[in-house]
């Protein structure tokens, strides 16, 4: 082979390699795409419901295998185990008085979004509309709404369930193929101050709740939701409070049992 031919071959190989890398790299870039809604097969924007990579709808039940003594029953006043509280949070918690909350008509203080998923409950998850996923709990009769797309919060008073912005997260495609599955990311703000735990461990109005909802199927066919939750509150938490909570799918709503908020 002449030197010129050798150079030409080298240049072609370089070009081909670059082309191959571009193909791979671009598939990776596509993979990292995130978005509240999605993209339909024809390239148009799909609704969040149509673009859902996982199906969260249906009935789900808390399975309390962790922190039973702090979730299934109300722990003693002053029990802050597992929560990285600040000294000011301890001061508030030490003054917890459920009778006072009842008298003030505020028995739902421990049913706000940062605490609600740890309450032993059933979930009923439905699509309220094409871009709003609704999560209801029978314990405390609460409703959360996860808004996808360009939803803008309405001005108004903070609420127990706050304003939740949602987006789908998808696995990175490889070799041009999009794998199944994905996660739901939800960020909730504008929350009315309440309790992280029924015994009065407080969170403030500045709290931010970030959740990742994942679905998995077990060997026996049971489907589970795992919610990885991070609560950030500069006033009452020394560091983010991170938990992971599990819910098992139920065939129907036969055990759905609406109950009011209880302060104690």
């Amino acid at each position, binding site marked *: 082979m002449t030197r010129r031919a050798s150079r030409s071959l080298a240049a072609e190989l370089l070009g081909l390699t670059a082309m191959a890398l571009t193909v791979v790299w671009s598939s990776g870039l596509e993979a990292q795409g995130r978005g509240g809604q999605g993209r339909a097969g024809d390239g148009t924007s799909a609704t969040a419901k149509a673009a859902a990579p996982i199906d969260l709808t249906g009935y789900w039940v808390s399975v309390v295998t962790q922190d039973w003594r702090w979730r299934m029953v109300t722990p003693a006043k*002053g029990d802050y185990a597992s929560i990285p509280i600040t000294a000011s949070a301890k001061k508030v918690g030490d003054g917890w008085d459920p009778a006072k909350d009842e008298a003030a008509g505020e028995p739902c203080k421990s049913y706000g979004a940062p605490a609600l998923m740890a309450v032993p409950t059933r979930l009923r998850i439905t699509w309220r509309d094409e871009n709003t996923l609704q999560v209801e709990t029978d314990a405390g009769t609460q409703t959360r709404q996860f808004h996808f797309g360009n939803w803008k919060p309405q001005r108004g008073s903070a609420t127990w369930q706050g304003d939740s912005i949602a987006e789908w997260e998808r696995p990175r495609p490889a070799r041009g193929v999009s794998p199944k599955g994905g996660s739901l990311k939800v960020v909730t703000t504008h929350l009315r101050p309440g309790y992280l735990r029924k015994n009065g461990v407080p969170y403030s109005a500045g709290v931010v709740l970030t959740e990742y909802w994942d679905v998995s199927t077990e060997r026996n066919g049971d489907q589970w939701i795992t919610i990885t939750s991070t609560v950030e509150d500069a006033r009452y938490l020394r560091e983010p409070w991170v938990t992971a909570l599990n819910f098992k799918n139920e065939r129907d709503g036969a055990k759905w049992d609406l109950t009011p908020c209880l302060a104690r």
Partner: protein
Amino acid sequence: MNPWKLGALVMAGVLVTVPAFAQFDLTGKWASRSGQDAMERGPGPDPVDYLGLPLNDEGRARALSYDYSLMSLPEGQCGYHTPFYIVLGPFGLHMWNEFDPVTGRLVAWKIGAWVDKDIQTIWMDGRPHPSPNAPRTYGGFTTGRWEGDTLITTTTHMKSTTIRRNGAPVSDHATMTMYMVRHGDLLTIRAVMDDPVYFSEPLVRSRVWALDPRGNLNLGNGVASPCEPIAELPRLDIAGLVPHHLPGQNPFVNELTQMYNIPVEAVLGGAETLYPEYRKKLTGYVPPAMCKRYCGCGGLGVPCIEDGSGVPR
């Protein structure tokens, strides 16, 4: 060689080295971030605290026969936990991967050891699990596969040991499945222990870690510690003595009821106790007036009450 053929080979080579579907990187040091189970991960559970465990009658009977002095028997001193301890214990994770030096393909993920848990190897190369009759080890045998962005592992061939540090048992017929998913710098592991011998339904637990690039985290020595059994308790020198509680004679059965007002039926666990409707059976429950031990106030500069006296120290 024809340049196009060479190019095709290059292209094939590049594509072959692309990671298989949707994997994410698990390598590094992961610091424990779970704001759950503080007592179980820290000081340890009370002697008879089976809250949240789906024990069946056999599992409960074996749990109640457990005596902590068993750990002082020479054969008990060097026992490890199963990999389920990953979601029970207090430590961080050190994870790395191993590749075939010739093909470059991933062979296994490794989860580092702790002082009382062996290195866990997660085989990713498609090898089968051993025969059902193969010997058991504390670490068992684990294989893994990716499903979307979730690494799913299956562990079999574990020795019978404890599922909680107070003697609640798990048998050597158990199968453990782990679901590992990463969100940014958070790693969540949901572990499912399915034990047809001692549980009436699978036990599910989750825990979260955060990537710690400084790698300065508690790994409980980070190695499976060498162990030399010694005589710890003179009374155990009597040949054949096995510490135990006979049926109906465990002295700690009512301890949690006395301290926390929780009915003994709940303390002894069982699948029924894990579900929200069980709270209807707890209507007579009244919380203790004030937390008196392990109240979680450490780190605040505020004295904790941890000895049951009610007096901060």
